[in-house]
């Protein structure tokens, strides 16, 4: 990647209903927390400009509904993702158990080129709450079993670790994008495919 074009990183946040996906996104982008967020219906996203390794990049963070039956609509939103953030609630064991299926579902729907190397980041949210059901150790073990996914324990409410987590997400997404571009350069006939479907001209001007 020799170009210094404006970079857009597409990040998808996934996880069970009520784990705090919308809250994390709002805490990171708008620096605020509310107990009154409504359940997300359909999909929405926020953007934020960040500096990663001296480069200005725009992160486009997608938030989708957490109930499983709405996932069939996720495909349209997963396409062209550079990083997938999996979220669970450290006080709710079921939300941790679902992680595998969220990860699998994402890989199936988004079909990244190299599923085994696609960057995921795991966030254990709501660490401000008691009692805790999933220990850091258990979460880390899961991460190790998945090719060393980075793990962060966060509290969207207390703004704990949120900034750090998203910095890591941005860095991973950027690495992924650079690698993808390199790969496509090796196979020039395939450039067209991703460029048009993922991020065409409107990506650059995406001021939303």
């Amino acid at each position, binding site marked *: 990647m020799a170009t210094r074009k404006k970079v857009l990183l597409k990040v998808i946040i996934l996880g069970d*209903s*009520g784990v705090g996906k919308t809250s994390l996104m709002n805490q990171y982008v708008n620096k605020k927390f509310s*107990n*009154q*967020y*409504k*359940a997300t*219906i*359909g*999909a*929405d*996203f926020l953007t934020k400009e960040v500096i990663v390794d001296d480069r200005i990049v725009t992160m*486009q963070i997608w938030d989708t*509904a*957490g*109930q*499983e*039956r*709405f996932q*069939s*609509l996720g495909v*349209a939103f997963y396409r062209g993702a550079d990083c997938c953030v999996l979220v669970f609630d450290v006080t709710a064991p*079921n939300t941790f*158990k*679902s992680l*595998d*299926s969220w990860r*699998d579902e994402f890989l*199936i*729907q988004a*079909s990244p080129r190299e599923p085994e190397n696609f960057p995921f980041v795991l966030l254990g949210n709501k660490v401000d709450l008691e009692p805790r059901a999933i220990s850091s150790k258990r979460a880390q073990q899961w991460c190790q079993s998945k090719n060393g996914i980075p793990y962060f324990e966060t509290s969207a409410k207390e703004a704990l670790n949120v900034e750090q987590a998203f910095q890591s997400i941005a860095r991973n997404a950027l690495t992924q994008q650079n690698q993808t571009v390199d790969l496509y350069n090796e196979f020039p006939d395939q450039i067209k*495919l991703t460029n048009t479907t993922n991020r*065409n*001209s*409107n*990506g650059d001007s*995406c*001021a*939303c």
Partner: protein
Amino acid sequence: MEESAEESMDLCCQDGVLLTSAPAAYMNYINTVGTLFIVEYLNSNRTRCIEWKPNDVTIDSEMQDQEWAMVNTVERRTRTFSETCSRSKYLKVNMIEVKSFRVSRNKQKLAFMDGKGESLCNFLFQHSNCDLLLATLKGILRTAPSRRDKHLHIILDDLQNPETQQLNKSFAELNLFQDPSDYVWGFVRNFHNKPYETAMEAFAKITDIVYRGPEHRIMDDEVHDILNRSLEAIENSTTTHTHDEYEVIAHVPKLPDRKDYPRGRPLSADQWKGLKDPEGRVEDVESVKLMIFRGGISPEIRKEVWKYLLDYYIWDNTNTQRQNLIKQRHDEYNVMKLQWRSMTHIQEDNFSDYRERKSLIEKDVKRTDRTIDYFEGDQNPNVLVLYDILMTYVMYNFDLGYVQGMSDLLSPILYLLDNEVDAFWCFVGFMNKVSSNFDMDQAGMKEQLQHLNMLLAFVEPELANYLKKHESGNMFFCFRWLLVWFKREFNMEDIMRLWEVLWTGLPCQNFHLLICIAILETEKEILMENNYGFCEILKHINDLSGNIDVATILSKAEGMYHQIIEADHLTDSVRLIIGLPILGNTVMIDSKEASPDISELASSSQGADGEEVCYERAISNSFL
């Protein structure tokens, strides 16, 4: 296969094939390795199927934990899969459903798609590639690589498909060309690539035969008329513009001018009183509904009238009958409520479907309209009532259970009625109108999005075309509007007005789709002038929340309704959506089967009355 007594023959089989995506009913087989077959049944139709069978039926125990509960619900509520599929133990897809397939990742990935380009099933070849399978497919199907995506192969037709044979035969009978089959396929290919040019060319050739044929052919007056009319229409009103590398000759028929339909006054207490007979029956239901449609309901009688609109009260009941009904409904409610309230911890522990629904409801009531007075603050008792009603609804309709969005539909009802039992039964009535929104496989939502797109193409072809070119033809950005009937877009007062108007079912079926179109039309300029793409369109639509004027939109949608029904070129597909009788007397057009491209073609052709649509369908069906 095992249970099928039909004789069959494996045309090809390949082991070590991972199922990576499949209809929801096969969820528990996803990521399982198995064998992929192409099977031909030795019945009269020579039905061919893609079949896949897992290696052994042991399922990873960890996976079982998470998926099992879901799978059960899936199977109960499946709507979109054919009978054979849901009964079959293994994945089985009839080749007739497959309209294209995509080969990727060094021929290790193979995906089969239906006519709408939606995935039927995807496979990953773990040990080898799909060459063998492709060779077999190519032996039985006529395929061509897509122009846009060389990995995508469009199935032109099954070589033994009866429709193909018929098409071939009818062209052969016309005796227009030396080698009918070649011509037909050339025609079909051209049709696919350059639909308008090819259609014109074909019409021209047929005209030659009709008007300048060497011998007199016997022709129906009717057919003669159709040909005449289409030719005239095309000559009179075509515009050309360049689109990519080929020229599109498009005709954009105009709707009649939109008239003003100012909103009426709400149904007043006096009017309402006057509509009831001395014993309390409401006699002229249609007039009541019409008044509500035109102006809504005055707040002081809303509480009572909603119970009628939501089928809790029965219009022609006397006061006495109604009192009995209320009592009966109270008792029923209490029985159902007791069912879940009396559940022991052990029962709950052993009932994961129930626990899952309960936990979702707990999460959602805490975040439903908490900013309005009625639900505000910690320990608000009304939040608990919301919870109790939704939990009781789970017992009332366990298959549907609780799906996100339902709490949004209940909240205004409870807010208005302020009574647990009344709100429950009214909510039941509302859910009866919209339950398909919450289908497990989302079939109801997908169908509505597609209908919305078809209506938009008819009313606002320019915008529909714009959306299509900007990756938004799937209308996903309207998902929230449709799922909870615009609940998230309006304040409490406005949503009550909008819903009561929609509940009348006037002036036509699916009027809520016209509400969508009215809003979209209002935003059309902004979307198009700013050249918004997929993301910006979605964002813009999401951000409209709280900025839509309900009265303006209702008038506009009503105006659109009149434009549509008065349009000369009203198509059967649009008629079906808005619930008008269709004109086509020969072929029923199933809007579900129409791909958006075809419906667009149908809706943008001049004078597309029944016959003509049928003609287009016949051609389209035979090449897609």
